């Protein structure tokens, strides 16, 4: 990974590609790469869908190696949804393949003068960019069928669906999985709209003839990787719970806690939760010949994903994640897994963020466009998005726009991005992260390891408001660091609970790079990423006022515990005082 590919879409005579050395970006990967490039090169006040925005796609630092779990990819830009900086993260095959092709990032910049759609092919011989208007308004599945026809079943692809072409703020970018299906998405923040605004529909990656990236210290790397895999396998979350039930194992538990946002965040428990649960889902999947345990990319040993077949045993979609099942399920009062799976398939095909769409439909239901629990109405609303009808375009631009158009007060967004599946009144600590992250409401932003492990901030007394703030800060730093390695965030709890597994991770990174690495280095990396992101947002006009939850979370008590969000604005403002 010693080069950056720049795709200049606005050049005279048509798009051109330039391959550059890494220069000042040497050593960066994943979120560190995307956020540094965006922060340095994108004018913060530019229009997100204009020529000055850049779309950066970067494999993690360890991607392309044999390090287990290292195949996550980051996508960065100025977000059309939030107006701030965005990093959206995805699984799938492209991270490994792009890294093996030697690219630390693809930067798509400028804008074509024409309305053509472009396709980029990257292989061992170089880069080719061509117009392909036959792809216009095709869903991601149809696009991939064409990829298979033209390039065979070994390549992988990055694509957008109609939502990206229509530049909707909920548009995602799809990454193909191990079965060459477009099921993995950089979902959040409208990154697909930015790709659409550049006129790029498809990137095909072919690593035939390329080899795996080799570590600088093979012995240290091999030993560390072995300990790493053992650590992940022996932990009850990464070795048992996630493989058996996926992330949807959370449905029953969050619902029991009264923190499961139901009917557009109007209450904290859903009567139909058990029907949507990971336990029910795993049973259903296996009974139909699907899979309850499956990886989203080669090299994943946790395998939190699966295959969801329809009633006739035919592939419908990958195992929908907890967030998706909540957003399209309980948040809309729907308790039917088949409906949720169908909506997931439609989201993947149209190229949409499942969280944003579920929340937007929930807001539409609150506005009276459909009744909570009406599965067919939800399907019809999503169809409108795919077709780009006027109503569909409103919904496809997210919950904040939908709420504004239909005059709904209860709109669960921060920085215009929809909240995920945990009510911040029940779990107030997550509310601190929702409010203050650079990304807009995001559950993964402050997700992972402890302050003590990473040595950023010493012991934290979480029982005090300042402790909650301190820990949220440390979690956000750690998350930014993990997002930069290419490691899946679900490793977090094995490294949290097992110091030797955390050490194995440090040893993998240093065995790979040949440089010594300490926990402090990791936290400094995370801190640098967050500083770059905060700096971008400040220059884009964000202030402390944007680091707030919507007012109703402080006013409306959430059943069954009847609690409101209690963390003060003054405390929220202390999160980023480093």
């Amino acid at each position, binding site marked *: 990974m010693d080069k950056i590919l720049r795709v200049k879409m606005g050049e005279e005579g048509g798009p051109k590609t330039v391959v550059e050395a890494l220069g000042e970006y040497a050593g960066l990967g994943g979120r560190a790469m995307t956020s540094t490039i965006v922060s340095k090169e994108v004018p913060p006040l530019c229009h997100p869908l204009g020529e000055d925005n850049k779309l950066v796609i970067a494999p993690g630092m360890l991607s392309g190696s044999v390090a287990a779990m290292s195949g996550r990819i980051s996508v960065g830009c100025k977000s059309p949804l939030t107006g701030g900086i965005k990093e959206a993260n995805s699984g799938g095959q492209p991270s490994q393949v792009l890294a093996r092709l030697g690219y630390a990032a693809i930067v798509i910049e400028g804008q074509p003068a024409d309305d053509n759609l472009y396709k980029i092919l990257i292989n061992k011989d170089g880069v080719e960019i061509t117009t392909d208007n036959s792809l216009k308004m095709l869903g991601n599945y149809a696009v991939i069928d064409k990829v298979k026809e033209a390039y065979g079943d070994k390549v992988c692809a990055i694509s957008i669906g109609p939502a990206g072409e229509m530049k909707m703020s909920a548009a995602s970018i799809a990454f193909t999985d191990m079965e060459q299906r477009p099921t993995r998405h950089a979902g959040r923040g409208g990154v697909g709209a930015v790709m659409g605004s550049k006129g790029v529909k498809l990137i095909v990656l072919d690593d035939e003839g390329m080899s795996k990236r080799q570590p600088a210290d093979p012995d240290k790397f091999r030993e560390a990787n072995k300990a790493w895999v053992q650590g992940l396998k022996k932990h*009850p979350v990464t070795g048992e719970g996630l493989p058996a039930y996926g992330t949807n194992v959370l449905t029953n538990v969050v619902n029991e806690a009264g923190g499961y946002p139901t009917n557009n965040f109007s209450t904290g428990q859903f009567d139909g939760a058990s029907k949507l649960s990971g336990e029910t889902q795993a049973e259903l999947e296996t009974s139909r010949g699907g899979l309850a345990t499956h990886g989203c990319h080669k090299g994943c040993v946790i395998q939190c994903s699966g295959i969801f077949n329809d009633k006739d045993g035919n592939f419908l979609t990958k195992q929908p994640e907890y967030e998706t099942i909540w957003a399209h399920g309980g948040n809309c009062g729907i308790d039917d897994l088949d409906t949720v799976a169908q909506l997931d398939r439609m989201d993947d095909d149209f190229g949409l963020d499942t969280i944003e769409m579920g929340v937007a439909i929930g807001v539409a239901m609150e506005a009276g466009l459909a009744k909570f629990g009406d599965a067919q109405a939800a399907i019809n609303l999503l169809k409108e998005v795919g077709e780009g009808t006027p109503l569909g375009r409103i919904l496809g631009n997210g919950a904040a726009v939908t709420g504004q158009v239909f005059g709904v007060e209860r709109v669960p967004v921060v920085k215009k991005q929809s909240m995920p599946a945990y009510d911040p009144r029940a779990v107030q*600590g997550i509310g601190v992260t929702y409010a203050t992250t650079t990304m807009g409401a995001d559950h993964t932003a402050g997700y992972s390891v402890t302050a003590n492990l990473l040595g950023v901030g010493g012991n934290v007394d979480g029982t005090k408001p300042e402790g909650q703030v301190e820990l949220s800060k440390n979690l956000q730093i750690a998350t930014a660091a993990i997002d930069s390695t290419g490691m899946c965030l679900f490793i977090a709890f094995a490294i949290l609970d097992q110091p030797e597994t955390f050490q194995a991770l440090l040893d993998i990174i240093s065995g790979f790079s040949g440089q010594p690495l300490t926990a402090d280095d990791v936290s400094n990396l995370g801190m640098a990423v967050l500083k770059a992101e905060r700096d971008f947002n400040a220059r884009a006009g964000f202030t402390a006022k944007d680091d707030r939850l919507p007012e109703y979370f402080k006013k409306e008590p959430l059943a069954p515990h009847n609690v409101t969000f209690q963390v003060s604005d003054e405390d929220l403002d202390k999160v980023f005082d480093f």
Partner: protein
Amino acid sequence: MELSIAVADDHLPKLVGLLAPWFSVRAQVGIDLKTFVCEQLGVHEVYFEERIQTIFLDSKPVDDVATALVHDGSVLALSAAMPGLVGATFRKGGQYSWMRKAISHGGDEKSDQAAHGWVTVKLFNMVLKELGPGFLEQGVWIDGGRVQAFINSQPQVFRQHIQVLPLEGLPVSPDEFLGQDLSDTSIFIKVRTFAE
């Protein structure tokens, strides 16, 4: 109504779905949660300490299993460790427990009034899989309509492995059992296994 289900022993795990989303037990209450789970429900102490990492009593996450008391009418949910930051906040006594302090179980005053009462039990994820068969063999109370719906939802091949026997009564076929209106009837179910 009390009934026994006989099932070939290697099919017992498939019946744990009967226990979802909840079942009831009649047991001694007014005692602390740990004593209740280990002594009244018969869960091994080591399993309780190590495997059951997430506990809710009346929807409140529990940290101190010695001060939370189980009462008549309590709802008790048991789960393994959960993924994600929010999952980790629910762990008993975990370092993130402060994040959900607003809803945590604060403990109860000790009571000397131990008596018998009804408790609703929910088992989730690995705990359902691992403890479920034991509960079925021990016997639990489940809504009759749900038992019928569960048996109805099973493939015919599996139904052939099930025999429904009213406890101490004459055997009835699954079809006869399914023909009765049991929607508002709580049934005590005990599962027996036989070698096939």
